[in-house]
């Protein structure tokens, strides 16, 4: 092994280099660095002369392996690992030595490339050996054979250990075996108070009360802890805690994301999915069934309440991407594949997955399944409809708004049509001017520029070209005028001609004579006036009949007027358009104009107590179809059609084509299968992660080939296999974990363990965990005594006063403008399936706790709790507060600090000293962290 110097006090790279030198093979980070940064430079600029590929090896130097690099060529070793400045290779690429410039002939590397090579040398100049071609893990059979997570799930034997007493659960045998192999001992056991607080947070997301803590501390029966676990597992708050974890995976939110044009963004029924999830956890719904329902509840037999239909929200409540279908499908493929399989299938949308055996064909096999599913316009009801007064009122209000919508539409159309009847002259002139335009687009453009509707313009053109007698009698004079080049001069002769020849409309003749037009524009204006007059006469006749309670007139009495009216009314009249045509012309303004009304109907679903709950269901389309591969993900470039079926890498032998409707149920069954190597492993890893703060696999949404076999692979498999064996029961899994000695260890580590296992990969102690956003807010409410413990229902706004005291899981999640409070506390990104939360520590969190009215309110409520408000002196008050906040008694130094604080008479303010003190306790690390 090569001795390394730590260059110029740069400790960082000293550590890095040391790691490389000690490792039997290249550190994965460095391997990646080499493959992505260095090998491409070598391949493009060096290998042609300095590798086994070289036709003629130059200078005796090869760069293919570290061995060759260290041996070097005629000038000596090419590299000194860890020391860039001393490495000839670096000197050569820097072009600083006139006698040694590589690549030669001025084909100098860029400064960034040189920097990459320097970095690589400084890190130890690792050269990972190229993998033989037969080990290509992008090939499904190879990956199945070689990648640990794709191999069948088998229950491993329980290891034999020395310290049998420590083994309370099979989990412990696996943990202990690894520790003993390294001559380490497990951590000490946590005290009772720590344990009840830990397990309460783990299962409920809430602290225990002081009474519960004391009872547990004083319970000396051997099964005290087991009974505690059972009690917590049976709590209705258990589902709120564990359901929320699943909602992260399901990228749950109560809104659709950005939508233009004032469309309602809220999902009316997202909460039915959330409540389904909470219920599923409380009822310990078998996980396989849980998956099947979330993917295909619509294809299963439904009970009377159809409750499981709500499960389909898993697929449907993602972002709407301005209704781009391929993006919506992509979101669904992603949530299913990462959420249930720990596979990043969505990477294969545009090209075959870069690392995993997932070709684009597989992506579009799934695409076809979701493209063959749709959301019904009217969502199915959940539960039996009860005919209540409230429900009837809901219907009445809904119908009222629907009536307003029809009325709005009617008015828009009438206004539009009325307008057309009063613009006859403009259209006549328009036809004249557009007669030389034959191109459709140019015609439309012309109409636009003249503020005419192209459809109506076309109708006038037709009337002029293919006229019957009536049209001729009215429009004939217009045509003659239009053909004249000197209207003022020709008018008398033309008018005389109309008088003498039969078949011209008398009103038109009279009007033209009276108007004596000097231009075509003036003639057009006369026509406008005459048509308007006929329309006014007609409207007067109609309203007169209405007033006199007579039947509506069928026509105008004066035949010449009636003749004009004929061109204004009726499906073939040029100045009229059929109803359907008007609707389509006005689609946009009608849609925009009725948006507030449509939103009002939507709103009824969450504002009206009689609104029935519905499922955000997905159903199969009547004719399911396959999708084509979209080349580079582009809908404009369809490639081959691919059948709807499961992923190749997870289909061990047969890979049947899905034939049952869209294939969602078949997909669901393929995922929720005991034969599927990933489903149980991925889920169990997550459950372990939520208990221990870290999973066996640290990328819980990616079990692909880039994810190393975990140190505790055997334990993961044991848990996963036992989980499946016990009917996919999550609560069974909890017991297996929680009753272990491993789980019950203290969170402080011994120096020996810390030195040997600094990352706690061996679970030689418990990881201290910080409260997540939900637990933090719920804890403040629980301690202040204000927590509203109701389960389920419509989401509530958490941000505005008066503050809701509901648990945080019931807060409205607006994925478009997620409130700062959520983001500040590392809430999961509701736009994409979230596998684990970030854990940042930033001053904005402190600002919220120091200054937000919500926290102040809790501090005041805490100070107002009876046992605190009624404390007869400071000593009693401090005792009572400690009991409530920390479920323990204060130690003398804490009492001392408290007394000093409470006796300080600095400034009068809006908070009493006790309230200020209460706030300090709420903000403390002891509240915020779980040991």
């Amino acid at each position, binding site marked *: 092994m090569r001795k390394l110097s730590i260059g110029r006090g740069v400790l*960082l790279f000293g550590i890095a280099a040391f790691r490389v030198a000690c490792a039997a093979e290249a550190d994965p980070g460095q391997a990646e660095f080499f493959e992505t940064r260095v090998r491409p430079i070598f391949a493009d600029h060096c290998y042609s002369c300095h590798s086994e590929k070289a036709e003629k090896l130059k200078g005796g130097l090869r760069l293919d392996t570290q061995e060759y690099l260290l041996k070097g060529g005629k000038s000596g070793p090419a590299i000194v690992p860890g020391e860039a400045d001393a490495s000839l290779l670096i000197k050569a690429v820097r072009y600083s030595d006139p006698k040694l410039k590589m690549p030669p002939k001025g084909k100098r590397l860029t400064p960034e490339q040189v920097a990459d090579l320097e970095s690589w040398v400084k890190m130890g100049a690792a050269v990972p050996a190229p993998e033989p071609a037969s080990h290509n893990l992008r090939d499904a059979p190879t990956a199945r054979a070689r990648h640990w997570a794709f191999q069948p799930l088998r229950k491993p034997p329980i290891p034999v250990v020395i310290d049998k007493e420590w083994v309370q659960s099979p989990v412990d045998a696996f943990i202990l075996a690894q520790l003993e192999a390294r001559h380490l001992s497990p951590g000490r056991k946590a005290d009772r108070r720590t344990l009840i607080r830990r397990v309460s947070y783990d299962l409920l997301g809430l602290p225990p009360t002081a009474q519960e803590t004391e009872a547990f501390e004083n319970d000396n029966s051997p099964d005290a802890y087991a009974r505690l676990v059972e009690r917590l597992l049976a709590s209705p708050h258990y589902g709120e805690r564990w359901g929320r974890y699943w909602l992260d995976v399901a990228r749950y939110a109560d809104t659709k994301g950005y939508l*233009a044009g004032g469309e309602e963004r809220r999902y009316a029924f997202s909460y039915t999915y959330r409540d389904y999830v909470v219920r599923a956890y409380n009822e310990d719904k078998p996980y396989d069934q849980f998956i099947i329902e979330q993917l295909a509840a619509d294809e299963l037999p439904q009970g009377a309440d159809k409750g499981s239909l709500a499960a389909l929200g898993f697929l449907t409540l993602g972002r709407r991407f301005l209704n781009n279908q391929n993006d919506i499908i992509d979101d669904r493929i992603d949530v299913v594949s990462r959420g249930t399989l720990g596979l990043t299938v969505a990477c294969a949308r545009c090209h075959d997955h870069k690392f995993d055996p997932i070709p684009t064909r597989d992506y579009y096999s799934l695409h076809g399944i979701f493209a063959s599913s749709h959301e019904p316009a009217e969502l199915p009801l959940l539960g039996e409809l009860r005919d209540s007064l409230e429900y009837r009122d809901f219907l009445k209000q809904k119908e009222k708004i629907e009536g307003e919508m029809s009325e709005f539409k009617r008015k828009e159309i009438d206004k539009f049509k009325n307008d057309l009847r009063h613009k006859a002259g403009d259209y006549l002139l328009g036809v004249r001017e557009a007669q030389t335009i034959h191109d459709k687009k140019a015609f439309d*453009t012309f109409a636009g520029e003249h503020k005419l509707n192209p459809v109506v313009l076309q109708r006038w053109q037709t009337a002029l070209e293919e006229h019957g007698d009536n049209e001729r009698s009215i429009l004939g004079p217009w045509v003659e005028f239009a053909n004249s080049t000197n209207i003022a001069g020709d008018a008398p002769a033309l008018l005389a001609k109309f008088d003498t020849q039969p078949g011209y409309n008398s009103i038109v003749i009279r009007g033209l004579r009276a108007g004596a037009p000097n231009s075509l524009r003036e003639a057009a204006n006369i026509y406008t006036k005459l048509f308007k007059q006929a329309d006014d006469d007609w409207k007067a006749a109609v309203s007169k009949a209405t007033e006199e309670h007579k039947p509506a007139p069928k026509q105008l009495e004066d035949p010449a007027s009636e003749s004009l009216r004929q061109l204004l009314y009726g499906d073939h009249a040029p100045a009229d358009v059929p109803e359907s045509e008007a609707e389509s012309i006005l689609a946009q*303004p009608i849609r925009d104009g009725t948006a507030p009304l449509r939103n009002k109907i939507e709103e009824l679903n969450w504002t009206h107590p009689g609104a029935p709950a519905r499922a955000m269901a997905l159903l199969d389309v009547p004719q399911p179809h396959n999708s084509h591969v979209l080349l580079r993900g582009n809908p404009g470039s369809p490639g081959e059609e691919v059948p709807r079926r499961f992923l190749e890498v997870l289909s061990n032998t047969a890979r049947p084509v899905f034939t049952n409707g869209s294939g969602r149920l078949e997909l669901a069954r393929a995922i929720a299968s005991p034969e599927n190597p990933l489903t149980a492993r991925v889920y169990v890893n997550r459950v372990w992660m939520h208990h221990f703060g870290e999973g066996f696999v640290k990328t819980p949404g990616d079990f692909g080939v880039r994810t190393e076999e975990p140190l505790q692979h055997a334990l993961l498999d044991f848990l996963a296999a036992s989980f499946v064996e016990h009917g996919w029961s999550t609560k069974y899994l909890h017991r297996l974990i929680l009753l272990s000695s491993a789980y019950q260890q203290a969170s402080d580590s011994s120096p020996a363990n810390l030195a040997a296992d600094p990352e706690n990969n061996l679970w030689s102690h418990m990881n201290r965990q910080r409260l997540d956003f939900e637990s933090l807010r719920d804890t403040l409410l629980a301690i202040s005594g204000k927590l509203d413990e109701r389960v389920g229902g419509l989401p509530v706004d958490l941000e505005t006063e008066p503050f809701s005291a509901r648990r945080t899981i019931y807060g409205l999640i607006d994925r478009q403008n997620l409130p700062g409070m959520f983001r500040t506390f590392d809430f999961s990104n509701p736009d994409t399936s979230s596998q684990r939360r970030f854990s940042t520590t930033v001053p904005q*969190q402190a600002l919220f706790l*120091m*200054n937000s009215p919500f926290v102040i309110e809790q501090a005041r409520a805490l100070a107002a709790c009876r046992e605190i408000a009624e404390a007869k002196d400071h000593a009693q008050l401090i005792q009572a507060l400690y009991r409530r906040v920390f479920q323990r008694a204060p130690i003398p130094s804490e009492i001392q600090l408290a007394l000093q604080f409470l006796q300080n008479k600095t400034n009068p303010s809006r908070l009493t000293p006790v309230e*200020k003190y209460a706030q300090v306790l709420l903000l403390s690390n002891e509240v915020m962290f779980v040991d």
Partner: protein
Amino acid sequence: MTPPRHPFRLQDSFLTRRDFLSRCGIGLGMLGLANVLGPQLAHAEGSADAAAATSPLAPRAPHFPARAKRVIHIFANGGPSHVDTFDPKPSLTRLNGKPLPMDNLATERRTGAAFRSPFEFRKYGQSGIEVSDLFPQVAQHIDDIAVIRSMHADVPNHEPSLLLMNCGEARLPRPSMGSWLTYGLGTINQNLPGFITMCPGGYPIQESQNWQSAFLPGIYQGTYINTQHQEIEKLVEHIRNKYVLQQEQREQLDLLKQLNQEHAQRRSQDAQLEARIQSFELAYRMQIDATDAFDISKEPECVRKLYGPGTQARQLLIARRLLERGVRMVQVWHGAGQPWDNHDDLEENHRRLARECDQPIGALLADLKQRGMLDETLVIWGGEFGRTPTVELPTPGANAGKVNGRDHNHHGFTMWLAGGGVRGGYVHGSTDEFGFKAVEKPVHIHDLHATLLYLLGFDHTRLTFRHAGRDFRFTDVYGNVVKELIA
């Protein structure tokens, strides 16, 4: 080839907990950074103690020495017309009212004849670059400005174009530029948010997606400030305590610190406990610093006069104070919705909008220069696209049908950059004779992004974050650095 395993990455420092931190303190935390950002990261900009080093906002050095250290993006949202501002087209004047001798390119709505600019252009500075009468004050600084006349985007619609401009992707949730920057660089002043976005009167369209952190940690999301307000507590959430005086809060925090220290002493050493203790001290200082930063009454009269009256002036002056105090990126929007989107009455509206911001932007450039900040401050001006050289035709429900405005145009438009290593007095590329399409040296939004990252010291292909199995970049799989834009 064996696929590389998951390496240590910057992002890991937000996922791992106490053991990771307590084991390595600053060293290994930084190693994580070194690995993703490249080992040039031997030293960060500021000094950092252990707690600060674990902060996701601790200052970090980029891949190579940066030309720019901070960014201000002045967003003329709605799409300012390039042929009326920075891209003169005499041919439009000549053809006014007549069809172009080419097919009108497809934009969102139908457009008709050539529509001459109602504004006059003249030459400014030594470079003699032409600018219209809309921006005479900005034009005074033209020799410090690189005008990119050959920008182009993908579609003529606001929503996708805003996302493309801000996040490098038109539809799917991706981190915004400010999020990438604060992820890559941290921020210099820990007492202020690292990425601030200001918009008076509400949100632009697409709302907070424009400054989203997407899959990056939430702390990298832009902090939105409604600059319509002037009171500090309406500007920054929870920045002030309405219940206790500063002295009382100090006493509370002193007690908290003592309790937390006793708590920590009863446990083995744990960096995450220490980090949280520190975060309260930071928050306490933030209250004072943020209040100060937003208080423009502290500026001398002459400076306030330089920026002039109005909301634009106020928010740009605040922006300068923030940049001066070490905020990494400030984005300044003209107003809620899409003010520059003048489908009708373009002349009147563009004149009004430009009058609102010309003097303040000119003042900002002068002010930055005078303070010696311009060299390291990258100033970006532009919209999400430009506008058509042809007149927009009436569309019921979509415009007022006045036939005196322009439609959106993504085929070609103008943006300008100044300061921060940008080549001043330079015009890059051009549109066609009429200003419809970028024809010479076209610069796609991804190219702009690659260039901006370059100026900030990043190889855009190497600033990555692994999410859902993929190493994501601001430029996705695109982008070429436009070297000519760099001084």
